[in-house]
């Protein structure tokens, strides 16, 4: 279904209320939120804890049904899809970098990266080749057979990014990927994202770090489930950034 809006990603009047056993009405986490993301854009979402950042990100991630409103990506009304079709959609369109990385501790680096390809009918060698490609992209080509526990925090973050990229997703989502890391390693991860974006990758990232805000096309501020008017908007095509080399 084609939309009148030409934006690659459109969040249209989304509200989210979590049902709550205690209060009958439930907790409203997002209130009538709308935002559009263009292809190739790098958007950063900032806001205090509990403001609804992760909720918005999982809604964008096609895995959390909004109470109201809709999400349209590439002309597809995502939450109109059945549960199984939505799983296929995630595989086809999205890469998700979790705050805690959520790597499988019993699989080595390359196996973790191949995980999203497990359900695809591809030759094993082709899956391996693709996984090795993205591992190299994030600078982990030489650590393919290490277990996550044998990697540093920064390397684990890069491994999580590699896994999110292996299916070649048009939209990359990341929930505070630098949150648990020290500044230096956080910058290292941020550089990976910036490099990816400079190659055309669309990225939507939740971050607490104000330093990152200066490096992206656009920053959205959220408070109590609503965007603040002070959203800083730049044109994706004209933005000038610091050199990725930090």
């Amino acid at each position: 279904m084609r939309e009148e809006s030409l934006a690659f990603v459109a969040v249209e009047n989304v509200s989210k209320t979590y049902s709550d056993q205690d209060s009958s009405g439930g907790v409203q986490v997002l209130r009538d939120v709308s935002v559009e993301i263009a292809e190739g854009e790098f958007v950063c979402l900032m806001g205090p804890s509990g403001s609804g950042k992760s909720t918005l990100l999982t809604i964008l991630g096609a895995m959390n049904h909004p109470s109201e409103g809709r999400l349209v990506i590439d002309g597809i009304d995502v939450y109109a899809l059945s549960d199984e079709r939505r799983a296929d959609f995630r595989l086809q369109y999205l890469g998700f970098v979790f705050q805690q990385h959520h790597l499988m501790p019993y699989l080595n680096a390359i196996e973790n990266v191949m995980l999203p390809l497990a359900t695809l009918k591809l030759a094993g060698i082709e899956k391996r080749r693709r996984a090795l490609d993205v591992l190299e992209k994030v600078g982990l080509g030489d650590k393919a057979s290490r277990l996550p526990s044998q990697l540093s925090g920064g390397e684990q973050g890069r491994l999580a990014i590699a896994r999110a990229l292996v299916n070649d997703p048009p939209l990359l989502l990341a929930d505070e990927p630098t949150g648990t890391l020290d500044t230096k390693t956080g910058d290292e991860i941020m550089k990976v994202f910036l490099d990816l974006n400079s190659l055309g990758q669309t990225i939507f990232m939740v971050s607490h770090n104000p330093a990152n805000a200066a490096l992206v096309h656009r920053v959205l501020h959220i408070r109590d489930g609503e965007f603040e008017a002070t959203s800083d908007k730049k044109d994706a095509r004209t933005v000038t950034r610091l050199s990725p080399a930090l």
Partner: protein
Amino acid sequence: MRISTIAFANLRRRKGKALFLASGISIGIGTAVALLSLSGSLREEIGSQLDRFGANIVVTPHSDSLALDYGGISVSGVSFDQHQLSNEDAAGILRIPYRKRLSVVAPKLLGTVEVAGRKTLIAGVDFASELRLKKWWRLNGRAPESATEVLLGYDIARAVSAIEALPGTSGAADQGTAHHSAAPDVFRVTRERVTVGGREHRIAGVIGQTGGPEDRMVFAQLGQVQDLLGRPGQLSVIEVSALCKDCPVEDMVAQIRKELPHANVSAIQQSVRARTEAVDRLTQFSMVVSVVVLAIGALMIFTTMMSAVVERTKEIGVLRAIGFRRTHIIKGLMIEVVIISAVGGVAGWFGGLVASRLALPYFTEAGAQIELRVSLAAFAIAVAMLTGIISSIYPVMRASRLDPSEAVRYV
């Protein structure tokens, strides 16, 4: 990397739990296999005992005169009643609805003839069926093949000096006591011909001493005896053996009665029957115990899978988030369950077989055996997998319904 790769990795990672589950299943399956194969071989044994006992249904004419006695069965022989059995009646038995379950129908005519000048009981039989019925007969020589050949009982053979004891074995044979039956290999047939009913016959063989009525009898082909006795087409008794262990003998008796209304049909009640009932009860008991043990195994799988799902909430959520369908999650978990159950099934089948083999001597005399039946192995493995799958359906469905956003939200 495929879904099965993840399943195998998970099995390797949780070896202890997998082994625990597999051994739980194998105990259940092992118990079932042991009990079932034990009662199965007891059943086999009873079957062969039944065979050894010979006939289990006897058909005789209606008669008031109890003239001759044959193996404890009263046979009306001398008087010519109007209700004689005939060859046609033997054929009639083969027409009953349960005819497929008949293993032997042995018609015979009994009467007395002179054998080498002595009055002797003679039986005209169909040797092919008679020998299948009298499994305990041990012939020195062979069965008669023509009308002019006869088979002699041991005592008769001695009386007409047709045999002599072999050297070194004479003691038992000469005393001829009931306690020391003479096997056919301790004597030698020395006479070729004998006069039966005034006609010359060839001695085809001699039956080793049995201690039963056949020791004092002569056997010849049915037609020949009917001819000798002047009773063409007539029969004195028809012995019937049913084929199976759990034959509906009572029903078969009723069907033969219906087919031969003029005859006396009776089932021979034997001690084997009591034993059959005991085994039936053992079989039922085995079934109940197996079901209970399997139910416990199923419960164990259920709780283990439930806790595994809780334990893996995060992992399953991640897989769902990166594009696994519900069915992919189900497939992965079911691969694990099926592998565990199959291993448990094979181990249980093997263990059960070993256990029943060890236990068998306590239940039967030597001779009974535990057979290696492919069907039992297949059955054991199938039941194991079915138990595993059925008891995991709910936990696995629950896992597949985990909300990915929920699952990955907290640390």
